[in-house]
């Protein structure tokens, strides 16, 4: 087995909130971002063509929060085309619907300059950036996060996912049910808590920890096999002072999220043994209604169908198309600098990868999860070198430091 895979003992996933690939990484040259702004123009409601521009601001620009519920995302992807050909032409129209302000509606196409986001763009250029990682559903947070935890949203395309249906177990259940494997879901603190659908929190609070605990576990080398890290979802007071939301959900400060990503990276890199044996995936749950130019591909249908009433578009949805493209970066000292991965992934790839790597064959899993690609090759002698991202023979010593 390649030494990087041989050394790998821990997978950590940090899932941020509501930013598209082009919005965050579009300015990085040569990775599939905004290489041709003119080609990605959207018409506004006056018929004028508007181009994406590097004018995104850290806070106070995306007010109100861009609509990213199923009907709005449908408009963003299909642009209102009566023949329902996906064209990514409906972002400005969709944002206009919220305020009826033509000039303001253009801001949904704005993206950050590379120098604005030194943490995320450095990680994207230093390690492996996925330029075809899509949200699992063209819809909002909860159903998309459910794909990361369960490999399915149990037929929901909305935020009202309160209960799960057997037989599909969460990735945490699968691992803790197979000792000696271990797993933990780290929320920022109890005031931020979890965006998991409260199912696990109610029934298995022992799989949760705080971000303080995550940092201690990194320091002491007690990180579980699989960790899922949640950012802080709200501005609130704590015993240690003011906690600024760092999830990057509009209208939260994007720089606070940058600092949080660096904190997670530093916690792992600060322990040499852990750094050598951990892969960190940084990914966003969905695009948050913000522009991206890549048409989401079709995918294997899930075994559920959302009714026309549930979707709010007049059309049922068989979970056979992915959501809008989001930033995704895999970090490990065994990954060659500047790796660009153009295979298709979505959040079902997370439980698919973790399950295959730690548990091997496992069933039952949802049709979406079983057909999802994996970003770390399963353990075993027959590793396909073309697919293995942790491919270096010797661990890198030139990885960036953040301070």
């Amino acid at each position, binding site marked *: 087995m390649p030494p990087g895979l041989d050394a790998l003992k821990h997978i950590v996933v940090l899932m941020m909130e509501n930013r598209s690939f082009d919005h965050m990484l579009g300015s990085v040259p040569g990775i599939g971002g905004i290489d041709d702004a003119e080609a990605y123009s959207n018409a506004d409601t006056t018929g004028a063509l508007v181009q994406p521009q590097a004018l995104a601001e850290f806070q106070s620009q995306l007010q109100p929060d861009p609509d990213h519920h199923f009907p709005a995302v449908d408009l963003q992807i299909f642009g209102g085309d009566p023949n329902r050909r996906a064209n990514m032409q409906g972002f400005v129209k969709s944002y206009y619907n919220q305020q009826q302000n033509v000039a303001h509606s253009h801001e949904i196409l704005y993206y950050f300059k590379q120098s604005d986001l030194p943490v995320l763009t450095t990680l994207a250029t*230093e390690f492996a950036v996925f330029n075809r990682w899509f949200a699992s559903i063209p819809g909002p947070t909860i159903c998309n996060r459910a794909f990361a935890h369960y490999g399915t949203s149990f037929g929901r395309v909305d935020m009202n996912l309160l209960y799960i249906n057997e037989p599909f177990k969460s990735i945490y259940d699968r691992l803790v049910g197979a000792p000696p494997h271990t797993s933990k879901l780290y929320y920022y603190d109890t*005031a931020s808590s979890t965006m998991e659908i409260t199912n696990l929190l109610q029934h298995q*609070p022992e799989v949760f920890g705080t971000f303080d605990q995550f940092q201690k576990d990194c320091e002491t080398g007690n990180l579980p096999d699989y960790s899922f890290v949640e950012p802080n979802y709200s501005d609130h007071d704590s015993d240690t002072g003011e906690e600024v939301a760092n999830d990057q*959900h509009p209208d939260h400060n994007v*720089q606070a999220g940058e600092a949080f990503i660096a904190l997670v990276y530093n916690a792992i890199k600060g322990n040499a043994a852990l750094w050598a044996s951990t892969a960190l995936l940084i990914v966003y749950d969905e695009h948050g209604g913000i522009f991206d130019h890549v048409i989401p591909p079709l995918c294997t249908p899930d075994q559920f169908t959302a009714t026309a009433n549930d979707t709010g578009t007049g059309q049922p949805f068989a979970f056979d198309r992915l959501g809008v493209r989001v930033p995704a970066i895999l970090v490990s000292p065994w990954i060659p600098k500047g790796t660009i991965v153009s295979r298709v992934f979505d959040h079902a790839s997370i439980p698919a990868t973790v399950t295959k790597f730690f548990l091997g064959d496992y069933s039952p899993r949802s049709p979406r999860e079983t057909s999802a690609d994996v970003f770390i090759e399963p353990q075993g002698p027959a590793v396909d070198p073309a697919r293995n991202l942790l491919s270096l023979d010797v661990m890198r010593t*030139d990885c960036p*430091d953040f301070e």
Partner: protein
Amino acid sequence: MGVIRVPKVPHDAYNPNRPVSALLKIQIEHMHEAEKRLPTRYRSEIYPNAIKTEGEAAEYIRLVTEGIHEAHADAAARRAKPAKKRKGVIEIAAVTDERAERQTGRKARKIKKGGKN
């Protein structure tokens, strides 16, 4: 690769009075669903429909999250407590005999006192 400076978060980024987003509203709803299943003593006594700001949302979410953890911790502590030692069968039979003797004696004394024969 050199050292990358992490951007400083501006002080005015902090605003706990910011109105709750649609996402936080949903998180509050989910927490409320979970809270309904908690025994009363672990509940927050906050009316979730009256929550308007991020700071208020965070306080409610904190109380429910901690309530869930406490309820589970208490249940685990109860499970871990050693069970009361049960008396063996012979011991129980002996106790029953003693009680019967005592009752017989008491009856006899009552009869004596009442002068009945």
